[in-house]
């Protein structure tokens, strides 16, 4: 079997396996898997509204996936995307509310504020890692909690003690009247273009610039890179900052696009953590992240329709979705068996 066929077969088989095992779970717990999966399908592609919302859901996943993937390429495990996203969310919302500017300044300013906030938030673990060899996983996890509660306090201050800030000014909004009319009031916004542009930016930085080459080199082998005369510390910090900026942009998508406000949160949004899975599913490449985010976003949004249309409880739905992703992620096992059977045939 040629390598390319294996490459195509692996994900196909893994998704089918995921769907099958998911179906078994539904049957065992007394629900109709056909109704369940058609509800899932309709929840993703049912009509213009669901398609719009699916793309809306994919948007922040794209950016959080990019954030994780980018740090990974430099050998850094950025678990702090969630926190960087939250500070980005707050920064974008704050700029969106506090300033009165024409749109062509206001919107970019809000977006940049989010990227800068996220970047600064990631700068701290980067600096600690570079200068003091503090492991970035620990620092970023803790920074998530700091971000959650700090932004909650700040949001409350901006909102005069209430839980939700007012709506951002229209000049800072990514809201799209055109998309709204096209998709029956879905919350699809222009942010998807920013997210896709960032996919290109990441590809460009990594593949077309010297900086990108250095970042990747540090990821492959720190010592060799240092021996080759690269400034490893600088690259570690830079990688974290760029990663954080992507995460901050994901927050901007929520602040300026989906929600149009910042609110006090009882817990994490989960987008940042799911970004880890998105990046790993996409093998940490820009294009891979697009597919990872699409899979995640579509399943996440489509699954909302399963309790709605098929009466399957949320808990079962979570299990089914997790199974599908689980099987996609363990493509290795399937590849292993494919190659093994292949070899046997050849031996004969």
């Amino acid at each position, binding site marked *: 079997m040629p*390598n*390319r066929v294996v*490459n*195509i077969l*692996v*994900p*196909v088989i*893994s*998704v*089918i396996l995921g*769907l099958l095992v998911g179906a078994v779970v539904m049957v065992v717990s007394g629900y109709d898997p*056909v*109704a369940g*999966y*058609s*509800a*899932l*399908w*309709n929840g993703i*592609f049912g009509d213009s*509204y669901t398609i719009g*919302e699916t793309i809306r*859901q994919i948007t922040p996943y794209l950016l959080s996936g990019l954030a994780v993937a980018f740090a990974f390429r430099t050998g850094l495990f950025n678990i702090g995307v969630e926190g960087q996203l939250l500070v980005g969310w707050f920064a974008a919302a704050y700029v969106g509310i506090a300033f009165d500017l024409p749109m062509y300044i206001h919107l970019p300013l809000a977006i940049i504020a989010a990227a800068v906030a996220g970047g600064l938030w990631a700068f701290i673990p980067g600096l600690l890692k570079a200068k003091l060899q503090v492991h970035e996983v620990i620092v970023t996890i803790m920074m998530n909690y700091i971000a959650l509660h700090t932004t*909650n306090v700040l949001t409350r201050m901006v909102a005069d003690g209430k*839980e*939700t800030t007012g709506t951002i000014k229209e000049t800072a909004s990514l809201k799209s009247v055109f998309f709204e009319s096209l998709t029956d*009031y879905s*919350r699809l916004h222009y942010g998807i273009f920013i997210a896709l542009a960032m996919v290109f930016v990441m590809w460009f930085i990594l593949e077309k610039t010297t900086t990108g080459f250095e970042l990747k080199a540090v990821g492959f082998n720190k010592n060799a890179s240092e021996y080759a005369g690269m400034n490893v510390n600088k690259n570690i910090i830079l990688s974290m900052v760029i990663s954080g900026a992507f995460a901050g942009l994901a927050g901007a998508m*929520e602040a300026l696009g*989906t*929600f149009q*406000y910042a*609110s*006090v*949160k*009882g*817990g994490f*949004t*989960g987008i940042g953590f799911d970004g880890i899975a998105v990046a790993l*599913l*996409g*093998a940490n*490449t820009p*294009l*891979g992240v697009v*597919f*990872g985010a*699409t*899979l995640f976003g*579509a399943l996440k*949004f489509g699954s*909302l*329709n399963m*309790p*709605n*249309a098929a*009466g399957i409880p*949320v808990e079962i739905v979570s299990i089914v979705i997790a199974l*599908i992703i689980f099987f*996609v992620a363990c493509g290795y096992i399937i590849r292993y068996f494919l190659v093994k059977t292949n070899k046997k045939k050849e031996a004969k």
Partner: protein
Amino acid sequence: MTKRKFGLGLSLVLAAGTILGACGTKDDEKASTGSEGADKGTESTDFSIAMITDVGGVDDKSFNQSAWEGFQAWGKEHGLEKGDGGFDYLQSAGDADYVTNLNNLVRRDFDIVYGIGFLLEEPIATIADQKPDNKFVILDGVADRPNVVSVLFKEQEVAYLAGVAAALMSETKQVGFVGGMEIPVIERFEAGFVEGVKAVDPSIKVDVQYTGKFDDAALGKTTANRMYSSGVDIIAHAAGGTGNGVFAEAKERKTKDPNANVWVIGVDSDQYEEGAVGDSNVTLTSMLKKVGTAVQDVANDAMAGNFPGGTTLTYGLAENGVELADSRGAIPQEILDQIKEYSDKVASGEITVPETVE
């Protein structure tokens, strides 16, 4: 390297394609049943209602559950079934899902869609603007739209009575309050409770803790643990699922030492069952919000053709919208009589309970 990446990309496209493909054939089937359902909805004159909850489910033994029980009772009364054309609910996993879930229910042609809880306030307002011909109800919040009925409860009044009960019952002269998020609803509970305690004995210390979450029982348990260890003997909670942890801690202490003097005051629905430890029980009473009654009132009004859109309904002690649950012997009769006195005074307006903590 590039080739491999291309291969991976290609395979992922196909992966996506397969998920879609696998369901493709079933899609038509579903579409047809879907339209049948819609037809049925428009033809029949039956009235149907649906609700969405925040991140807590309808089995939270608290607010959502009492709303859902109201739905079930209402459905039974009118001979309706769960599902299209009857009554139904959707649970949300996070705040991004609220508007989608509301939209889903509107599309299924429910006559009234309820948002259960303060967190649904903004989403209800948003969807009410988008779907001006549909009717909505927001519980525990206010959305000033012509097609929305806002329902508020005077939590401070029932919390006041709970405070009175706690103050009269406390042996250590220390009582506690565990809140969920610092939102107006919960602050009304806090204000009432603190005020009630003060009305009986200003020297009693009230330990107020906010957990910041409504769905973290583990956090509720540690908070309760700290309080009980510091000498508090009665904890009132207004923290939804987090409050289940308060019960867990109290029950644990009661199991270890049957003579332990620990009590919990439940919230929203009668949480007596939640506090059962063998033959004894740690539930002193519960601050009932008759969410179910409110839900049914609005539905019945709307059925009769007078949906009170654009208004805010307030349920207090006088309206029978809030009350203390039956203590089942945990509170002795003479104290119950004292509570009754306070209750009458509040209902008649002689005592006004503040909504916020000074």
